[in-house]
């Protein structure tokens, strides 16, 4: 199987620091069952936001699921079959197995399709019927029309930064969603996030946030995106595990964002002057 699916179970609250009114908007969209589109660069907190919102929302509903959030990370070989389900060969017979999307539609989970434009075009057909008033999922292989559970919500994300024009979302798809834009947080907020997530002191977290800010000035040079908040947190994690800050930045930032030697050296130089 090539599909990349992970399930989220809502035990503890996922940390999320709101940057604007996105929490209120999402809540309102959920109560009206409006599908949501999250736009933003990689590692800026889109997935974490969905997890956080799922955690909040599912504490308030009666529908207590084991798996309230189904995340499908889309890639270019992901077909509609991977999401809906397929026939598997089991002993002497073929049996139908639901895909992650079908499961979410049936149980009423939130289904989060990460980097949707990466997936093949046939997946958009599924999205269309699920996101308008019909709220149904047609399964052509079994001839079934699955009506969505009342609690079901579709959330998709995409990254307008590096996806080529060819892979842009069609307006007919885009216009079915409430769109929330995400970006990397300001230096002060990002420092706070890093300090919390990695458990390091504010000073070094602040330095890491400044590194993030400066390295992002370099995007479009061999790496499509600047260094993400996620990478900065990784660096913080390594530091709190006792690794020397420069070495931590070397492995988590410098070598992670580009393969180009010149760019790597430049990023290493920036890291070098900002860290104490």
């Amino acid at each position, binding site marked *: *199987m*090539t599909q990349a699916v992970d399930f989220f179970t809502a035990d503890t609250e996922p940390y999320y620091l709101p940057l604007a009114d996105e929490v209120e908007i999402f809540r309102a969209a959920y109560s009206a069952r409006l599908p949501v589109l999250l736009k933003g660069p990689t590692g800026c907190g889109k997935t974490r936001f969905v997890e956080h919102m799922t955690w909040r929302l599912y504490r308030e509903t009666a529908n207590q699921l084991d798996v309230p959030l189904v995340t499908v990370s889309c890639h270019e*070989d992901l*077909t*509609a*079959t*991977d999401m809906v389900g*397929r*026939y598997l*060969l089991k002993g002497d017979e*073929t049996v139908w197995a639901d895909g992650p999307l079908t499961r979410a539609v049936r149980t009423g989970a939130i289904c989060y399709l990460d980097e949707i434009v990466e997936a093949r075009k046939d997946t958009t057909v599924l999205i269309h019927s699920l996101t308008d008033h019909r709220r149904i999922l047609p399964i052509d292989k079994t001839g079934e029309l699955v009506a969505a559970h009342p609690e079901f919500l579709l959330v998709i994300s995409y990254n307008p930064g590096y996806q*080529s*024009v*060819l892979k842009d979302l069609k307006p007919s798809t885009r216009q079915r969603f409430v769109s929330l834009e995400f970006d990397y947080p300001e230096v002060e907020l990002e420092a706070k996030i890093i300090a919390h997530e990695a458990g390091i002191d504010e000073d070094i977290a602040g330095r890491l946030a400044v590194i993030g800010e*400066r*390295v992002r*000035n*370099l995007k479009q*040079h*061999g790496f499509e995106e600047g260094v993400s908040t996620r990478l900065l947190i990784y660096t913080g994690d390594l530091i709190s595990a006792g690794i020397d800050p420069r070495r931590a930045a070397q492995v988590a930032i410098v070598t992670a964002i580009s393969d*180009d030697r*010149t*760019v790597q*050296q*430049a*990023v290493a*130089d*920036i*890291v*070098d*002057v*900002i*860290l*104490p």
Partner: protein
Amino acid sequence: MVNLAACEDTLALFTEGIAGRYLHIKATAEFANNRQLAYHSDRAGQGADALFLPEEIDAPDHHCYRVLVLEQIGLRECGTFSFRMERGLAEISELAARYEVPKGATPRTGDFFLLFSAFSQPSLATDLFNLFEKARVQAHLLRTYPGINRHMQRYHEHLLETAELHYDPLSFGHRSLWGDNEIPPEWQSLETALLQLQGPDQTVYDSVRALCQLYDQVAEAYVFDTLTAYPSPEESVPDWLNREQRIDEWDEKLEELDDQVMMADMIHAEDLEAERGETSEAAIRDAEVDIKMLMDERDTLKRRIDMEKSSVQHALGPDRSAARSYRYDEWDYLQRRYLTHWCRVYEESLLGTDEEDIDGLNNAIRHFQSIVQKQLEQIRPTGLQRISRVQDGDELDLNAIIEARQDIRAGQSPSERFYSRKERMHRDVCAIFLVDLSASTDDPVEPAEPKDWSDYDEDAADNMRDPWYAALTSDEEEPVVERKIIDIQREAMVVMASALDALGDSYGIYGFSGYGKDCVEVFVAKEPQEGFSQRTLQSIAAMKPKRSTRMGPAIRHSTHKLMQSGHAMKVLMVISDGFPQDSDYGPERGNHTYGVEDTAKAIKEAQQKGVETFCITVDRSGQDYLKQMCPDSRYLVIEEMEDLPDQLTKVYAALTGR
């Protein structure tokens, strides 16, 4: 000794990251266009869009270049160039006491000029001020970029060891900043001032205050020789940078004035209407006078801004902040060696405006579409293909399943590959079209071709019989316009662009020109990763004849970009109208061998890197030099200019279709 050339690529990225905007990293020797400015070629400096660094420094390692870069960025971060004389006079009583408006000062006179004219020896005051600013900036850098500390220390220790020992206060000041503790007791006051300026909240005005306080004492230590006079501050770079920043402030003020004039106008109009009876004639007249004054003030300021902008540009050189620049080697065939980092290539986006005439280009696309597509169809991939017997897919492969069942029945373990899936067959081609934009492309095409497209090509005749085309050609009676080489180049480019877009290859369209080795220009009409859009058409329409044809660096730059694109197949097509030439392309201007040899070398380098090259020229005498420049069967001389789009497609199909 460390060399700038060895680390300038990294340094440019480092600078962009730290400063948040692109700055050209130039060697101080490239300060050629600013000859009228006083400049120390052994020191770092900056212009509006560039940092100047010595080509070579006597330093322990190349990290010292980063120290120099940060010092320059630090000057901006610390607001050195935002010094305003007005505020200085208001805040610093010592300055007000010694200042007199110099003769001939106008509102456009630079603030630094005004400041230093308050001292008996302006040049000494400048040096002292620079020393203070250096102290302030250095402390700021150590606070903001603590990691630079160790590199700075090592560099400073090196400077202390190697610098000649002078017994004058300025040298002592510098030595103190480098960490020398042995400052003679009589200059303790200077050291104290330097230490104080290293505090966190010090501004440029604190430096000026320190200058006023210590200048007389310092000046006593020097004997002034009129022969070794310092250059006039009118020629100093910081003064111009200061004036450049002042323009922004004036622009803001101009906006304010504009708003005020508008407000006053509105109020006045209301007054006239609503209170005609109540307001006295005199009040109305007063209001009119006010408005008149405001408008006068605004117009004066506007004129001043325009004048200042042009003088700043004249002094600091044309603004190239929108461009990026790279240096490339050049092959000198006379000495049979590379001149390292010889040419500077500026890469700039061509931004077409809405006014560009793109109708002609659209017509060209429509006209050539069928012909071109017929040729490209041969290399068109088949699209989606169903691949059977794979481990994972969207459908079960019936044949494979039957076999698997047979295997199971026969007691053997079956193959696991019983799915089938659709796969897209794609080409991985990146092409760059490099179009000559030299001045000669402005020449008309000879002999004049029939302007009517309908009888242009026999192959196209089929399409032309189409009633729709017939209507198109008969209705439009085009006036006879002289067509130029550049027109046909542009048409060929849009035709290629639309055709390649349909084919799905990535392709870039660059124009090149320039003047001299320090100013080769590459204009980007379309980058390979961009899609084809209205904007592409506008950018292509914006390709205009410029200056010379220095082909070597343009080819090297395109090759560099192709290598970065990471595609499997890389194609570079050069479209020119004559031999390579430039003002300093070779020892003699009339002799083109040097240019041809360098271009040949550049093409060979590209080939060695795995780039397929092809040169097309519309110069009928091109056979001679193209034979020298290009590998066999990798060039084409086009006899009839109008054939260009057609030929270009043929060549492209042949090159990439294999």
